[in-house]
């Protein structure tokens, strides 16, 4: 009676089931609750140019694996232009080109993105630092500022912060003031910070981010600093010195290029808009897993045709019902008619709702049992008699449907969804128990069946349960483990405690 293999098997099954489910939750953000919704943003760049009849080439910097976000979908729209996507080390460009275009041309780039804190952006380490000369006296001023800042800092982050602090100082020292003489805009300060950092041997670059806001039609880019600290890229706000990229900032492009670059056109105008759409979290997870080209999703239930999916929505619940059945029979000790009949009845209840289901079930079975006893006098052979009961069941269902329709009760119509064969077998078994063992036992077993069916229905009907087994079918392995464990339960059943309660008092 060794139980070790059982526990090992059950443990492995549980670990596999939970592990797979957990992986789906963590890696792709599959939501654990059916109502969980995550925020999805649409970012759109719309730009227009005017052109004469000659070749036009327009280049738009587009997001490439922005940290903290996953791009779920991308669209490129233009009229008749050929599109090429060019991926560089640190940039990604959409290049539209046409041999001839006349008049005003409109281009759209639209991306659907969602926040995903696990994505840090797949960034390459820097290739080295090139220090560009600013010309004298700026080079000297720069070197002095860097030397002072280095003296007051310990590492790359503190150096960066120090440089940003100096550039933002409302009362800058003379070297800094010289550097800022050409302008004090945020963009200019960001570029200067990069220049200062690179001259200190620290790879750095300016990136442009978008603050996501719902319904923003003319969004502006915020320059940010991306600094290599020797192991990873870090982000700094050139305005506040904040040492991280806020979750609301969507990093659009990096590198020193302009957002749009047009050859053969003029008057470029850009509008950046952002808005929020809320879609079911599950959809996002699916799209995201798709994006990662995960094998898991290739073999997912969600890839099946919708009709098949809806079949599995029900089928996957049966093991849950079976588990409840096992618990009620082997641990509680409820007696039922037929082993799995209650589960099937519970499935039928899904269509009729509980109360109506119970009433209709009782009604049809009662009529069936009554008629069966009348037929018993005809001395039929067993199989023909079963067939006859089946015919009666069908007619009963029809009668209930028609009557309830006449009475204006919609619920009666759903009776047609009861499995006919199940009803027939229920009638036959009930009749035999009634005849052979007596009414009390028959009612006992009948009530047991209905009680189990009702409980199974209630559990199977929980949105969470239905959702979980559908999205994480691997959880059924955990159910399987549970069934295995109950399968070796050798303790008393609850009802046995009642049955034997007079026993075991004094004897040993």
């Amino acid at each position, binding site marked *: *009676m060794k139980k070790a293999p059982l526990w090992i098997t059950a443990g492995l099954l549980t670990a596999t089931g939970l592990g797979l489910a957990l992986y789906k939750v963590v890696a792709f953000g599959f939501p654990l609750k059916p109502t969980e919704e995550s925020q999805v943003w649409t970012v759109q760049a719309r730009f227009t140019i005017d052109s004469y009849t000659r070749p036009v080439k327009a280049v738009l910097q587009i997001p490439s694996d922005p940290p903290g976000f996953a791009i779920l979908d991308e669209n490129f729209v233009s009229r008749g232009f050929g599109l090429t996507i060019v991926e560089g080390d640190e940039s990604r460009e959409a290049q539209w080109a046409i041999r001839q275009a006349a008049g005003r041309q409109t281009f759209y780039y639209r991306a659907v993105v969602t926040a995903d804190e696990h994505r840090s952006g797949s960034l390459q380490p820097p290739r080295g630092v090139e220090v560009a000369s600013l010309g004298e006296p700026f080079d000297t001023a720069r070197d002095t500022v860097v030397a002072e800042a280095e003296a007051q800092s310990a590492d790359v982050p503190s150096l960066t912060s120090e440089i940003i602090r100096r550039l933002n100082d409302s009362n800058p020292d003379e070297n800094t003031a010289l550097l800022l003489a050409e302008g004090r805009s945020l963009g200019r300060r960001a570029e200067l910070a990069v220049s200062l950092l690179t001259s200190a041997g620290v790879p750095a670059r300016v990136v442009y981010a978008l603050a996501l806001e719902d319904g923003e039609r003319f969004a502006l880019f915020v320059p940010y600093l991306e600094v290599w600290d020797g192991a990873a890229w870090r982000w700094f706000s050139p305005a506040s010195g904040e040492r991280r990229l806020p979750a609301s900032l969507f990093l659009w492009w990096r590198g020193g290029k302009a957002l749009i670059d047009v050859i053969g056109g003029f008057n470029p105008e850009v509008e950046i808009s952002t808005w929020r759409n809320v879609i079911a979290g599950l959809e996002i997870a699916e799209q995201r897993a798709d994006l990662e080209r995960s094998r898991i999703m290739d073999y997912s239930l969600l890839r099946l045709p919708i009709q098949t999916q809806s079949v599995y929505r029900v089928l996957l619940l049966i093991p849950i019902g079976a588990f409840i059945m096992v618990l009620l029979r082997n641990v509680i000790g409820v007696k039922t008619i037929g082993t799995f009949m209650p589960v099937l009845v519970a499935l039928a209840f899904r269509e009729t709702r509980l109360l109506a289901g119970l009433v209709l079930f009782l009604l049809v079975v009662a009529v069936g049992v009554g008629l069966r006893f009348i037929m018993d006098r005809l001395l039929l052979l067993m*199989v023909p008699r079963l067939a006859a009961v089946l015919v009666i069941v069908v007619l009963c269902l029809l009668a209930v449907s028609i009557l309830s329709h006449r009475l204006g009760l919609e619920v009666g119509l759903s009776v047609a969804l009861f499995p006919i064969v199940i009803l027939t077998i229920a009638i036959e078994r009930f009749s*035999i128990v009634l005849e052979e*063992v007596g009414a009390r036992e028959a009612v006992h077993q009948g009530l047991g069946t209905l009680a189990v069916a009702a409980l199974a229905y209630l559990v199977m009907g929980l949105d969470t349960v239905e959702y979980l087994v559908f999205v994480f079918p691997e959880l059924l392995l955990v159910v399987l483990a549970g069934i295995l464990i109950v399968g070796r339960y050798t303790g008393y059943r609850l009802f*046995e*405690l009642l049955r034997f309660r007079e*026993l*075991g008092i*004094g*004897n040993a």
Partner: protein
Amino acid sequence: MLEIRRRLRQGGVLGINQRNAEFIRRLNPRRLYPLVDDKLRTKELAVAAGMPVPELFGVISTQHGIRTLPELVAERDQFVVKPAHGSGGNGVLVITGRRGSLFYKSSGALLDERELGHHISNMLSGLYSLGGQRDRVLVEYYVRCDPILEEVSYRGVPDIRLVVLNGYPVMAMIRLPTRLSDGRANLHQGAVGVGIDLVEGRTLDGVLDNQVVTEHPDTGHRLAGLRVPAWERILKMAALCHDMTGLGYLGVDIVIDRDLGPLILELNARPGLNIQIANCAGLIHRLRLVEEQGAATPFADDRLEFCRRYFRHQPVAS
């Protein structure tokens, strides 16, 4: 609840789950089940082993074979018709007399030949067999009640159930038919279960529907203290049934005929647990005691000696 659970554990009461997992599944190989599930095979086996059984008048195995019934029972007024695969006494039809072409059931109701035929036809179709597979029907000798037991039976023959582990009878009870049970000896149909002291073959108090009773509900006769006739032979027959079938955990049903003495009625590979209620005692302690014996001795007499030594009924001291 927990208190009851603890008490039952202490009293060694066997539960269904434990019975199935620890005794039936371990000691009763599946392949041996047909020996006891098919009453016809059990009978053949017992006859071959030289054990007394109710005489078999005939077997009906096809629908058209029903026509041979009048021939089979031509000379007999009393006989029993039962499905070979019936369980728990279901489907058993006891004919206690005839008037012309009509048959008296044990309940006193009358049946004509056609109704009897219909009943047999149902049995053949598998109405009473597990899983509904086709079945055969046995027509056999009607056992008449022993006068001692007649006083505590209502229109039927009591049967004695023994639970036998590895050839050691560990517990016994007698099931007495009542008006409620329609002359049948099935506890869940309303028969009275009465524990038997394994050593002396003397009856104890009875249990009806889980309630202790001291008198038969119909005859009013006191239940305790009756001496079961031919007890030694009954014990030995039960012990030998293990050797005959190879089943380690076995229920043996024995009836006592007025003239022929104890006869093996049927065997059961999944004997019920009610015997514990009838005896007011748990099975586990006795089962463990037998298991500690290790390999069973091939000699039934030695095993019975062991049973007599250890399985005397101990009155409940409550």
